[in-house]
């Protein structure tokens, strides 16, 4: 058995591989599906993001009038989480890297 244990270089790989993922450069976007009730979209925004009614309504109306709304600017991991939660409610949500 060797005196010195050689550990795999996991730590370094993780640091370089996840740096950009940890930066808040990801946008969570909700797109308009005309079939969704306005009250439903408001409720989902409140539930998923913990927003008050007023803020949720502002974003709901933006989706309704402009076709989409940027709901969050966050890390890749959190963006994936939010998109997944919104899609559980069958809202049309995607994420993209901020340009």
């Amino acid at each position, binding site marked *: 058995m060797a005196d010195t244990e050689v550990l795999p270089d996991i730590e370094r790989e993780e640091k370089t591989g996840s740096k950009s993922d940890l930066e808040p450069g990801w946008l969570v976007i909700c797109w308009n599906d005309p079939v*969704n009730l306005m009250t439903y979209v408001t409720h989902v925004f409140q539930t998923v993001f913990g927003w008050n009614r007023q803020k949720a309504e502002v974003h709901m109306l933006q989706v309704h009038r402009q076709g989409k709304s940027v709901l969050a600017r966050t890390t890749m991991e959190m963006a994936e989480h939010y998109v997944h939660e919104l899609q559980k409610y069958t809202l049309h949500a995607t994420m993209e890297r901020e340009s």
Partner: protein
Amino acid sequence: MKLIRTLKGGFVFRLSPREKLLLSETVKFYPLVPASHHHLNKEGKSAKADENQRLLEESLAEHRAENRRLVLAMLDEPKRFRETKTGFELKLTHSEVEWLLQVLNDVRVGSWLALGEPEHEEMPEVTEENAKYYFALEISGLFQSFLLEALGVSEKSEWAAE
């Protein structure tokens, strides 16, 4: 369907026999939205994007399977709908209201997709083939409104012009 009591952890709704039948028939459509409908991003074509998409679909499939199990349990559970002189009482916790909203919206969006994703003014003619989707679209929206009203989310008058 009418909210008759608010409990500490949920709600009690009153339903007529006809409303109970309509709710049961509507949730039986679930799940209606195809698993491939949802995407993490608009353009992702990389191997990582494909992998993330696969994980998303798997996760949503698990979630829908669980919702489906809860729907069937709700319909089969004798005590869930308590019979009264005029109809039924349906007791739902807050989290059950959330999954029922998700189920109903899946049925609503799935029906809309089946009808060809029309805008309001472009709804296709009702035919024997698509009538069930019209039914599901309208009835799911109606029950969503009842539940949302119980949660205190109601439509504002100024939205009517939207």
